[in-house]
């Protein structure tokens, strides 16, 4: 019994990481319906940015992340402003190919700049520290921090969405682009700001990714699929839904691994397909699409 509880806890904590991967994607997909195939690679890019700042300036990863965040905001804003705004339109395909091209460029650019060597963000003892819960149960401090950060990110983003004028503009643009323009909303600027924010969230995700496991320029796409699954299960436009989605994938993977380590990823995919067949629009879709 306690054993299963341990598995559940592990699954939820893993879900926190996936939710962080997915939160930025959820933002972008919810507001501008962009399927950003480069999202995973952008997280990896952020991880290398953190690594570089930490190495050059001798800072610890947390401080380096704080410094990297405004830089990544600017990068995301610029990316949207220069490139992605031009590709967005009625069609699904051009943005797909543009973000695919971006993904390849980022991966190979990073390979050129940093080689294919595996990297890690080092924090010291806290990396493996854990909190004893009694009865053989222990929670890792980092996974707990990860989940906590995921929840904090969702809370902050929801605060932005539901308590500010900018947030209203985001939601309006997502609901009905044509009428939002009629209301004087400059949707290109809105999109650029949204992408900037998504990059900040990606930077936070990158921190926890880099601490938890080794990373190299090519791991972006694998993370991307989990992020998409979480976003879709959660439902369009719902950040809590994305968090729930991440947790579901995390739980499914952890339970799958418990049955047979080779089944971990498969279990996650099966869970996704089951949810999506039962609820094609996700668990908590926001109003009408």
């Amino acid at each position: 019994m306690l054993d299963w509880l341990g598995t559940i806890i592990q699954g939820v904590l893993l879900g926190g990481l996936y939710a962080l991967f997915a939160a930025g994607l959820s933002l972008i997909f919810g507001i501008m319906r962009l399927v950003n195939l480069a999202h995973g690679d952008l997280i990896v890019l952020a991880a290398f940015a953190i690594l570089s700042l930490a190495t050059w300036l001798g800072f610890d990863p947390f401080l380096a992340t704080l410094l990297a965040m405004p830089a990544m905001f600017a990068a995301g804003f610029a990316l949207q402003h220069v490139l992605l705004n031009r590709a967005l339109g009625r069609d699904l395909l051009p943005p797909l190919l543009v973000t695919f091209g971006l993904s390849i460029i980022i991966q190979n650019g990073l390979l050129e700049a940093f080689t294919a060597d595996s990297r890690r963000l080092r924090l010291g003892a806290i990396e493996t520290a854990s909190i004893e819960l009694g009865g053989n149960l222990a929670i890792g401090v980092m996974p707990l921090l990860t989940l906590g950060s995921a929840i904090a990110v969702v809370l902050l983003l929801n605060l932005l969405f539901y308590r500010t004028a900018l947030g209203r503009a985001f939601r309006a643009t997502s609901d009905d682009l044509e009428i939002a323009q009629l209301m004087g909303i400059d949707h290109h600027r809105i999109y650029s700001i949204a992408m900037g924010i998504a990059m900040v969230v990606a930077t936070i995700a990158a921190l926890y990714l880099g601490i938890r496991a080794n990373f190299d320029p090519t791991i972006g796409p694998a993370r991307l699929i989990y992020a998409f699954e979480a976003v879709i299960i959660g439902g369009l436009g719902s950040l809590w839904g994305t968090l729930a989605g991440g947790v579901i994938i995390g739980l499914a993977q952890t339970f799958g691994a418990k049955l047979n380590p080779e089944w971990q990823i498969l279990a996650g995919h099966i869970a996704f397909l089951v949810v999506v067949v039962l609820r094609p629009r996700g668990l908590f879709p926001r109003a009408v699409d």
Partner: protein
Amino acid sequence: MPNGDENQLIELAQYRIETKTRASAILALAGVALVLIFAVLPVFAGRGLIQDLIFVFYMLALAQCWNLLAGYAGLVSVGQQAFVGLGGYLLFALTIGAGIDPIAAVVLSGLIAAVFAVPTALVLFRLRGPYFAIGSWVVAEVYRLVFAQFKQLGGGTGTSLPPSATNEIFGIEWVKEMFEVRSPAARDIITYWIALALAAGAPLLVYLVLRSRYGLALFAIRDSEATAESAGVDSFRAKLGVYVLVAAATGMIGALIYLQKARISPDAAFSVLDWSAYVIFIVIIGGVGTIEGPIVGVIVFYTMQHYLADFGTWYLILLGALAIVIMLFAPKGIWGYVAQRYRVALFPVRRMLVRPHE
């Protein structure tokens, strides 16, 4: 009925629906000639060229299939690698396990892939647009992970096609005599002809589907599914039909690919990069929603690969940049841009209302 209205009716009856253009008739002949030239090419060409062409042919065939699915039926799938891998594994299973002749196995693989496509579609059709795209990718990953579990077929590391399976291909003795080559080269030549058949057959298949009433239904669905349904089109059956047809073709192509490679592994067979990303690149760069587009796209892709692949990461960066630049400046692809500018169509599938005496 007043006289005026009657005259109008008679005039209306003289209108015809046509799809031919003058350019297309000439090009149809040119196309047949081209296929014949390719067919006799093994007489002159070296093994390297033959192998390169096999690659070009199967990428073209995959591109035509994806184009039919996404460009015409509106089903943007990032999961066709499921059927490529399935076809590959079925080929191995049929030739190694059941001793079936490889050529027959290619066809059989396609048919069996079609059977798998039905439940796959039933799951995927619950989803729309981007959700469908991601869902199809996830399904392909499921296929990959499941096949990695089958130890009989090599598990996660894969397996090879033993010579015993391929040395007995129907016609190989004739080829060895005719072209005075040994088994491996003869195998390549036969594989080449199968690939040519698929590459020539795919655009033809797409063309025939689109010219049929079925194709008209697809156009209607692509433009507006709700409107099409209210006009009596059973969009579910139409989409299911296309999906299964494309799965069968893709399965055959996958079988051919792995017949040539003679070595299969789950990561390679179900690779989203090789069998989806590059294929989608080819179709969109060439021009999605046109039959000519993938042909242009595969020429561009092959040329880049052939001459630039040695540059490693820089080649890939260039590929990515090309994708971006073309999408920004010619979102309909190279052929789409040309076709719109110069009003050309080599494979005309649009129906035109032609007035009498025109």
